């Protein structure tokens, strides 16, 4: 048996499950698989054993670009301190219905 067949050398896949029609696919976890088809089968077996899903996506992990978890503060800075983006910032209409 060649070394390529040991599980750890299979590419990593990220798994996304849609719990019911109308909802988004949500990240459920990851797994290793030799190819897309096997990844889907494994994802079904691993992440939807209790009817958690109506649809599954598998995406090769190295196809996902991600923000750097350590630079969280800097990367998202521009949306901080902008309370005016929330309705609660506007208090004059308190007590007025449907606003």
């Amino acid at each position, binding site marked *: 048996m060649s070394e390529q067949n040991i599980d750890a050398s299979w590419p990593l896949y990220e798994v996304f499950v*849609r719990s019911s*029609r*109308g*909802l*988004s696919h949500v990240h459920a976890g990851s797994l290793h698989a030799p190819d*897309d*088809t096997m990844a*889907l*089968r494994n994802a*079904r077996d691993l992440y939807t054993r209790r009817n958690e*899903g*109506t*649809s*599954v*996506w598998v995406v090769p992990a190295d196809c996902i670009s991600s923000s750097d978890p350590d630079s969280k503060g800097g990367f998202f800075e521009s949306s901080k301190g*902008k309370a*005016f*983006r*929330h*309705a609660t*910032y*506007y208090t*004059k*209409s308190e*007590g*007025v*219905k*449907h*606003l």
Partner: protein
Amino acid sequence: MSTTSMHSDAPVSNLDDERAGQERFDQIIAEDSRIEPRDWMPEGYRKTLIRQISQHAHSEIIGMQPEANWITRAPSLKRKMILMAKVQDEAGHGLYLYSAAETLGISRDEMVQQLLDGTAKYSSIFNYPTLTWADVGAIGWLVDGAAIQNQVPLCRASYAPYGRAMVRICKEESFHQRQGWEILYELSHGTPEQKAMAQDAVNRFYGPALQMFGPPDDNSPNSKQSMAWNIKRFSNDELRQRFVDMIVPQAEALGLTLPDPDLKWNEERGHYDFGELDWDEFMTVIKGKGPCNVQRMQHRREAHENGAWVREAAAAYAEKQARRNADAADRQLIGA
């Protein structure tokens, strides 16, 4: 995304049977469940959605113009930041909706082209000018208010990507209406001139805002089918009535009046009666002869053309990066 036989969202894909597809579709609609992009759907349903979602997207994009007109002249830094945040949101709404429409098989380029060459429509409300700062308040309160009234039921639209986009949009809209109402509140509690300016803005935007719900039901031929498909949940007139019922007390809280002599509470119906809207004007604006149609389209075309170098530069940069990465990989292979 590639589909394998595992894809449980498309149970009829291998049957290749229109009738089975239609049956499954009808069942999903009857259960008030959601259609996902890979489900079989009737051509009319797809076309209707592409038209509605892309026009909705165009409206968000064109809708930035009347308000952006006041960004440089907002009366304070605070108001300027709020207005920028709102206009930025509208750009985002346009992008969510273009993405939702793309799942139906139309390309972004095609939709943009339809807007630029005038074959696609957008909401006629954005063809009115913003003459004073109070207009920014009136737009937030009445135009975003009417949009929200329209959009909340669309969160349950049968086409799932549309519904999901609307959920995001409705969350973000929540501050739009309030900030507009608050602008008018400040003005109507300011000097007599400021109050008059607020009243004038409400007078001009009231009618066009009510027309945002579309023509009266007996003159809205496509509504019936859209309701049968669970895209539309309430008729134009139902939504309009709800909106009027909502804004009357809000206007009172502002200390402003609504420009309709026929507006009065009807005890029997439990609703406000209101006067006939100017549908001739509505049709005139839709046909391109409103006060700002030409200006809005011209500005959009110019913005598109002037942005070409940015798109070209981004593509050239991506290409350069890809080449560099490939070169680096080659060097590693030969051990250089």
